[in-house]
């Protein structure tokens, strides 16, 4: 009976100690090497803190050391919270203020940045000089149960305050067991990771490595700039499994380079995080006619994914790619405005029930209570569902089709963004009186329409926003208005602006 995600790793490291586990652009580590490093980190952590089941922040670039740190945190009986090293320090501080981690694992250089921004040094643990000599691995993790947290991942919040989603061992175990069985993953799998570690899609890559003995290649991020180099890397490293965001797959398909690189071994091609256009999927399918393609869907709050569709038929270029059916041990309710189950073809909000549900948002009881609610179809005993805010319907085949959002959340380059989060910081830019942030789905651009006395230099606005927002949240179109259009009750007329600037 498995109750802790570490059981995957411990068994795998025993079974294949010398097999290649994880590789970044600098180093290749075997499972034994990874275990030793994780053990050394865990020993340091337990010296600093007696706590269990509390967050420990990992402020490190995507590399082997970050993976070892996640494992080290888990061995100490705590949960890890990966932080974005590219985010502005003020955003990191806002997250740290809310998270109150018992420790921050980082490097000398990054740690110095945190300290100069005012983060208290007793909580910073520098890993650069930590030796990874052999020693006993702390056993505090064995006290944890499966409802305890594994990680806390932060998502954009609509009022400028990121939300930390608390994901449990049970959720990850169910997800990984499902994925391993469904996609028949074993130790021959070589994973070409794309997802940043701050993005929960990386959970699949990491834990398939830990659970199945697969090799995890942390693809150097700069390769995603250069599609030919990226494909050459996949060929060179014999990568046969990828789980990428559609933006990246679309970019590769658009550049028409798939046929130009020889020696590709892709067997399983999975994607999630945003809508995958069938047109681009078809380009990939014609290049890899024998590969398995699967569209996965799910918000962070239900442990990565809750539905999947294995592409099993020809799809027209304009057809939607279904998000499919629920993953094993997960159930989907589609509820209409009256909180009743929708009929076939009737649109409603996708809601999820099952052990995959996150425990809630860290230190945010109000937001937690709003999103995790009693199942309205079950008046008999307490049972929570998670309301995703995604609008979907079931087609005649019983497959779920994604339609859009109920609110102002968008997916941009694979990142989940609340437009209100951007607006919150736009209003802090000197000179801007009011604003409305829109998303152009066709051109994939964030559009800022702002109200001010006069036109403001876009470079200035961008530099101001850069202090608080990560780059993927910056608008790329800046439109000045003396006055924003209003609805009769005085609110900014978003619909009017959407019509003016195109959907």
């Amino acid at each position, binding site marked *: 009976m498995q109750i802790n995600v570490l059981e995957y790793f411990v068994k795998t490291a025993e079974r294949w100690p010398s097999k290649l586990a994880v590789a970044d652009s600098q180093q290749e580590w075997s499972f034994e090497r990874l275990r030793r490093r994780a053990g050394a980190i865990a020993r340091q952590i337990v010296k600093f803190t007696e706590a269990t089941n509390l967050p420990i922040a990992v402020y490190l670039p995507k590399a082997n050391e970050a993976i070892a740190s996640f494992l080290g945190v888990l061995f100490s009986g705590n949960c890890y919270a990966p932080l974005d090293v590219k985010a502005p320090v003020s955003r990191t501080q806002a997250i740290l203020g809310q998270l109150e981690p018992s420790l921050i694992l980082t490097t000398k250089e990054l740690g110095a940045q945190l300290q100069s921004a005012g983060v208290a040094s007793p909580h910073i643990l520098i890993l650069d000089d930590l030796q990874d000599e052999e020693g006993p691995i702390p056993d505090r993790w064995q006290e944890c149960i499966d409802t305890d947290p594994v990680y806390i991942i932060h998502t954009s919040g609509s009022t400028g305050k990121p939300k930390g989603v608390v994901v449990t061992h049970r959720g990850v175990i169910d997800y990984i067991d499902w994925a391993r069985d469904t996609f028949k993953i074993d130790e021959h799998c070589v994973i070409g990771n794309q997802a940043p570690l701050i993005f929960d899609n990386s959970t699949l890559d990491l834990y398939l490595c830990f659970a199945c003995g697969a090799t995890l290649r942390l693809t150097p991020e700069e390769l995603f700039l250069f599609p030919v180099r990226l494909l050459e890397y996949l060929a060179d490293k014999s990568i046969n499994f990828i789980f990428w965001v559609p933006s990246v797959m679309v970019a590769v398909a658009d*550049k*028409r380079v798939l046929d130009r690189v020889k020696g590709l071994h892709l067997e399983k091609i999975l994607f999630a995080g945003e809508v995958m256009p069938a047109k681009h999927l078809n380009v990939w399918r014609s290049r890899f006619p024998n590969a398995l393609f699967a569209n996965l869907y799910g918000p962070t709050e239900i442990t990565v994914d809750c539905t999947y569709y294995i592409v099993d038929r020809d799809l027209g270029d304009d057809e939607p790619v279904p998000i499919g059916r629920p993953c094993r041990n997960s159930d989907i309710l589609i509820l209409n405005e009256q909180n009743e189950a929708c009929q076939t073809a009737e649109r409603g909000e996708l809601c999820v029930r099952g052990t995959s549900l996150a425990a809630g948002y860290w230190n945010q009881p109000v937001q937690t209570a709003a999103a995790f609610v009693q199942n309205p179809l079950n008046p008999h005993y307490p049972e929570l569902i998670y309301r995703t805010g995604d609008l979907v319907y079931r087609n005649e085949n019983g497959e779920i089709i994604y339609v859009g959002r109920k609110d102002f959340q968008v997916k941009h380059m694979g990142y989940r963004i609340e437009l209100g989060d951007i607006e919150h910081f736009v209003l802090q830019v000197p000179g801007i009186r009011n604003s409305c942030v829109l998303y152009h789905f066709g051109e994939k651009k964030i559009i800022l329409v702002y109200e001010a006395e006069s036109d403001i230099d876009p*470079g200035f606005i961008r530099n101001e926003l850069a202090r608080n927002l990560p*780059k993927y949240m910056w608008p790329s179109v800046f439109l000045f208005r003396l006055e924003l259009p209003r609805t009769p009750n005085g609110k900014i007329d978003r619909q009017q602006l959407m019509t003016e600037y195109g959907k």
Partner: protein
Amino acid sequence: MENVIAILKNIRPEFDYAGVDDFFAHGMLDSFDLTVLVSSLEERFGISIDGVDIVPENFRSTEAIVLLLKKYGAAT
């Protein structure tokens, strides 16, 4: 050359691109910027850059970009 610098400047106003030998090595262009740069160049010069030409060598300096544009017959 000035056109190219103006486009770069528009993407990252905080940098001075003239005379720099390698934008990537100096952290002056990242993945978001490169995507914008390629589409800006395509739009500005009415060309379509082939995927095989999207390699670091062609975008690391203003000279490299001008050379690439010449290859596509764009008037810089």
